[in-house]
């Protein structure tokens, strides 16, 4: 549906917002552009909408080159971050705004507006003015206004960022439901990784104007391509180290936290600088782990963050003089009776399973 080829966007002569980005999005996909502010995700979305043109490269939409086609001639519609509802028009006229040019008979417009508002459950607010609505309602009007024209692609610019936590979760479900029902392509921009993980078919993780990794939420979470991805998606404990031994059967790395045995990798040589990542939820108490003879770290508990279903402990491990910080999640489901819940200040032995550790070669992907 969308083909972005070698797109570069340079602002005011020197600021490189997008650096040779290529990306293909299939029809009906829910793709999220994820990244910290300034990573280029919004610039890319604006290029798709047609508000801006790339410095280099091309954008194809449904097979047609739209690189320099103005927004009013593109078959895409956008939900703006702060909704951008027309303040001088009622809800109904906001939704009907984009239908005027289609020159439909009045009755048909009325039906389309009614249907669009039904879809977001706001038909009773058709005569209200935007300022009379709550944030969540405005959001849904913006959604109805963008969808009423039946676009091939719906663009969403941080659509949930202005909503409070409870409403945001409800809208996540709502957006997914709409996506499934309509079957059109959704491209969403967000800086919120939980939102991206929960909603997307595929995530495009961006950084400094480049695509860092593209993949399913599962891929990005469980097989991050770089230490950056591992730390941006979820939480990952990272330790710098040097490969002490690399063979077809073993990979041993010396880190500040101690010697760690990882799954064998043929592409890494002895002496290479690597970064080891291990997620807090993959660490378990050594006494419960099967083979705990290796990769057992002695950790002193410094702080506990209670999250309900889990408790995240901030621990110090490694040499006493220069301890490394480490997060460990104590899952309630793994300890239904509440036993083994360590107290602050105590020391626990944590086992890091080799299969669950990420190994990133330093320098190749920082």
């Amino acid at each position, binding site marked *: 549906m969308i083909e972005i080829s070698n797109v570069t966007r340079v602002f005011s002569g020197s600021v490189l917002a997008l650096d040779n980005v290529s990306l293909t999005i299939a029809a009906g996909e829910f793709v999220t552009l994820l990244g910290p502010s300034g990573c280029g995700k919004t610039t890319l979305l604006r290029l798709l*909408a*047609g*508000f801006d043109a790339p410095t280099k490269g091309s954008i194809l939409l449904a097979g047609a080159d739209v690189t320099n086609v*103005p*927004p*009013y*001639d593109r078959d*895409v*519609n*956008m939900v*703006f*971050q*702060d909704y*951008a*509802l*027309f*303040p*001088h028009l009622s809800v109904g006229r906001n939704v009907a*705004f*984009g239908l*005027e*040019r*289609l020159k439909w008979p009045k009755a048909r417009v009325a039906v389309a507006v009614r249907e669009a508002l039904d879809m977001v459950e706001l038909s009773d607010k058709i005569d209200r*003015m*935007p*300022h009379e609505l709550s944030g969540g309602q405005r959001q849904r009007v913006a959604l109805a*206004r*963008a969808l009423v*024209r039946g676009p091939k692609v719906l663009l969403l610019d941080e659509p949930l960022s202005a909503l409070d936590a409870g409403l945001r979760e409800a809208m996540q479900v709502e957006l997914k439901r709409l996506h499934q029902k309509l079957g059109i392509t959704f491209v969403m921009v967000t800086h919120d990784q939980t939102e991206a993980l929960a909603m997307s078919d595929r995530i495009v993780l961006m950084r400094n104007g480049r695509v860092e990794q593209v993949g399913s939420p599962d891929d990005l979470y469980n097989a991050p391509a770089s230490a950056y991805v591992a730390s941006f998606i979820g939480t990952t404990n990272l330790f710098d180290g040097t490969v002490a031994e690399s063979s077809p059967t073993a990979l041993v790395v010396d880190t500040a936290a101690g010697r760690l045995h990882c799954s064998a990798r043929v592409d890494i040589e002895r002496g290479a600088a690597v970064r080891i990542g291990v997620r807090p939820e993959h660490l378990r108490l050594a006494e419960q782990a099967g083979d705990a003879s290796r990769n057992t770290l002695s950790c002193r508990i410094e702080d506990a963050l209670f999250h309900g279903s889990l408790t995240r402990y901030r621990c110090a491990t490694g040499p006493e003089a220069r301890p490394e910080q480490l997060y460990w999640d104590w899952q309630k489901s793994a300890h239904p009776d509440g036993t083994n819940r360590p107290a602050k200040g105590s020391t626990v032995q944590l086992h890091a399973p080799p299969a669950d550790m990420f190994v990133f070669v330093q320098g190749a992907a920082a």
Partner: protein
Amino acid sequence: MKTDTLQRRLVALTFLLPLLWILGFMLLPYSIILVFSFWQQEYPSFVPDFQIGNYVKLFVEPQFVTVILSSAFTATMVSVAALILAFPFAYYLVFKVKSARVRMAIYIAVIAPLWVSYLLRAYTWKTILGSEGILNSALVWSGLLDGPTDVFLYNRFAMVLTMTYIFIPFMVMPIYTALEKIPRNLIEASADLGVRPLATFARVIWPLAIPGVLAGATFTFCLSLGDFIAPILVGGANGMMIANLITSQFGTALNWPLGSALSMFLLFIVLIIIELSNRAAPADRIALG
């Protein structure tokens, strides 16, 4: 306790001064003029009375009716001319000038003449339009005219031109503010919904600029309706406006009651216009967000 009373007295004093100012220099003079307007003229003086003869005179004596209508017409022309010039200008500043610094510089350049003496600015046009003026010299020099002409000065055209020049900042300022307040993403949203730039102007920008246009039109209309320097300097024999009529009633004609009635009438018209313009643009309807 003590500091508390002191503070309260200080606060009271702070508000007392502006209150006294308004009472002494605005409400009191207005009241005196209002009282005068019901008095009776008995040449060469006037006597206290309560009758509306002065007001009736404004509407029955052709001399006054003509001046009132002519003033209203001039003020309308000034407002229209100022709008035609100011709107594209403000639009260009807000939407086309990319650099914020350049935009500010041009904006200030438009506002700056307000700090120059009004009389001086009005007089400038006399030297431009006069028979010895720059315009005539240029036309003669270029060969378009054989000799200097006096058609530019002492007529309504000269008055409208001068007043438009003088009052245009009051049209630019509110329109600029209104346009600047329009979120850019509304214009993008309109384009995104398939609406072309010209239609976006008609359906988004213009409706949202109306409060500014109304405010600007109110300013320029009321200011030019009450102007009396431009008519004296460039208006010529038939350029008399309401304010000149008022001046003459308090001066040579020595008819203070009639002058007062004219003043009250002018004040009334201005208040009506302000009220109408407030009603035409209810603030909550345009509230953004």
